[in-house]
């Protein structure tokens, strides 16, 4: 399993105990479902364990030692997150449950305050449901319109359509993914943001698939909002992040209200807390936020450029090998500079669920279905696809196992 690539994968795999697991009656686990959620290194698992064993406490409002230790560790994560995406200040980092809730926060708080009848919100055909449904609900509530940027047959956005949308006035928000969770397409967000800002329109970037896999700099990109999930980048489940530029955040009304997000509550009026606490109502997911810090440390130690390099290598190899299998249709850009490590495909008339079952028998975990992207499925004119997605611990040997299972499916289904 010697690998002379960007990352020392052999060493990395030692940090992920689950990769020793046997599945399907004794097969080594080949985990290729990383776009859904990644595995966690021991450092993260241990950080959570350590918190509960040694300093579990509610935070922010107590004087005792456990509370003090927990508060410091919790806020330390906020600093690390801010630094990881190069936010100007920790005040711009809000912890939510997941990327989905982060986008909903914007739709409820910023959206309801700013979007009016006949306004438009522009999204794309490649969005995850989490970046579609909140805007459907908001626009239908407000009598506003939802507009889509189309995607061409190679998986690229039709930028001309985007220009027309922008020219048509009344666009209040542009909300696009940085990387498609089906096609792998890396969207030219800097161009999109620049064009949008020329018209004074803010942009939300769904970073759920990009922040885990490449260096992302919110100041350089100049996005106004960014949402992503800890569990897709080695972190625990139950932690999402919303970044919002301070001048926008300062004007946003609260979303989840209750304990911790207030300064003073009187019977009929309330003064809200300072940023970012104003947007974090109730007891946070303390243990997992603290655990997330270890995930960021882990990625920083590897270096995000190396992570990206490693995934390009694997993706190249995977696309090459899959293309060699008879009956396969591949989706998304062919150029690995324009895409991430997410490979969607179909083979003959094998339904993706059947393929996933066959894969599972070989120990290979892939995802099958609509991947929460039914608008894109309609565009591709398929009910579902199969999807393999890679991360820092995956190897070419695992891709070989995957290809073996694919050949087996072809044999069984006589394709």
């Amino acid at each position: 399993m010697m690998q002379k690539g960007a990352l020392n994968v052999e060493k990395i795999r030692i940090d992920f105990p689950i990769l020793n697991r046997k599945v399907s009656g004794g097969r080594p686990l080949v985990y290729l479902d990383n776009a859904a959620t990644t595995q966690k290194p021991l450092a993260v698992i241990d950080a959570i364990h350590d918190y509960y064993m040694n300093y579990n406490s509610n935070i922010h409002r107590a004087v005792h030692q456990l509370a003090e230790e927990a508060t410091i560790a919790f806020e330390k994560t906020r600093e690390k997150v801010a630094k990881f995406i190069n936010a100007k200040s920790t005040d711009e980092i809000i912890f939510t449950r997941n990327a989905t809730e982060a986008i909903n926060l914007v739709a409820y708080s910023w959206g309801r305050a700013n979007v009016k009848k006949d306004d438009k919100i522009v999204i794309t055909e490649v969005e995850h449901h989490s970046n579609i449904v909140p805007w459907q609900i908001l626009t239908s509530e407000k009598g506003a319109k939802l507009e889509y940027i189309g995607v061409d047959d190679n998986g690229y956005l039709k930028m001309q359509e985007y220009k027309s949308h922008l020219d048509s006035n009344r666009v209040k928000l542009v909300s696009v993914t940085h990387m498609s969770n089906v096609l792998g397409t890396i969207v030219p967000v800097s161009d999109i943001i620049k064009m949008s800002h020329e018209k004074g329109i803010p942009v939300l970037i769904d970073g759920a698939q990009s922040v885990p896999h490449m260096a992302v700099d919110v100041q350089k990109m100049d996005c106004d909002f960014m949402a992503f999930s800890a569990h897709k980048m080695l972190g625990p489940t139950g932690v999402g992040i919303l970044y919002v530029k301070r001048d926008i955040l300062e004007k946003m009304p609260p979303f989840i209200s209750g304990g911790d997000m207030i300064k003073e509550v009187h019977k009929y009026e309330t003064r809200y807390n300072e940023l970012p606490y104003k947007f974090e109502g109730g007891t946070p997911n303390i243990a997992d936020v603290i655990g997330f810090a270890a995930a960021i440390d882990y990625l920083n130690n590897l270096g995000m450029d190396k992570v990206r390099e490693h995934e390009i290598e694997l993706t190249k190899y995977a696309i090459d090998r899959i293309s060699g299998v008879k009956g396969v249709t591949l989706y998304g850009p062919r150029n690995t500079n324009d895409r991430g490590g997410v490979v969607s495909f179909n083979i003959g008339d094998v339904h993706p669920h059947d393929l996933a079952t066959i894969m599972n028998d070989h120990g290979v975990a892939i995802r099958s279905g609509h991947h929460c992207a039914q608008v894109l499925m309609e565009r591709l004119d398929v009910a579902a696809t199969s999807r393999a997605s890679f991360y820092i611990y995956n190897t070419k040997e695992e891709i070989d196992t995957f290809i073996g299972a694919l050949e087996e499916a072809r044999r069984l289904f006589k394709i």
Partner: protein
Amino acid sequence: MSDDIYREIILDHYRNPRNKGKLPDADVSIHDSNPLCGDEIDIHLKVDGDKIKDIKFEGRGCAISQASASMLTEMVAGKPLTSVKDLTKNDILENIGLMNLGPARIKCALLSLKVLKLGMVKYYADRDPATAKKLQDDSKGL
């Protein structure tokens, strides 16, 4: 294990489904889907007295759900409609010859039976609510 699942007969029913199509003069039609994987099944029934005179299905989804539906239509055609209530999970799994599916895929195999049972209840609900109620209670747990 995949060898056991994707046998000739399953693939045959997947690719050449029996009794697939519409039934314009159906006495009852019913639809359901599996929200987790998106498999869909419609069943149309023509009933004569108590007998299933004609049965057709439409659907899309995986080989297991579609083959299972196809084989189910063959199994019940001509039988008394009320006898559907006695069909169990095991009957279906035996019928399609897949006794050890995992929980996720079992739902695929059983979707058509779920739809058929709903159809049975619906048929009687309009005609004989007491029977419908009794059939529903007896069919519980799928």
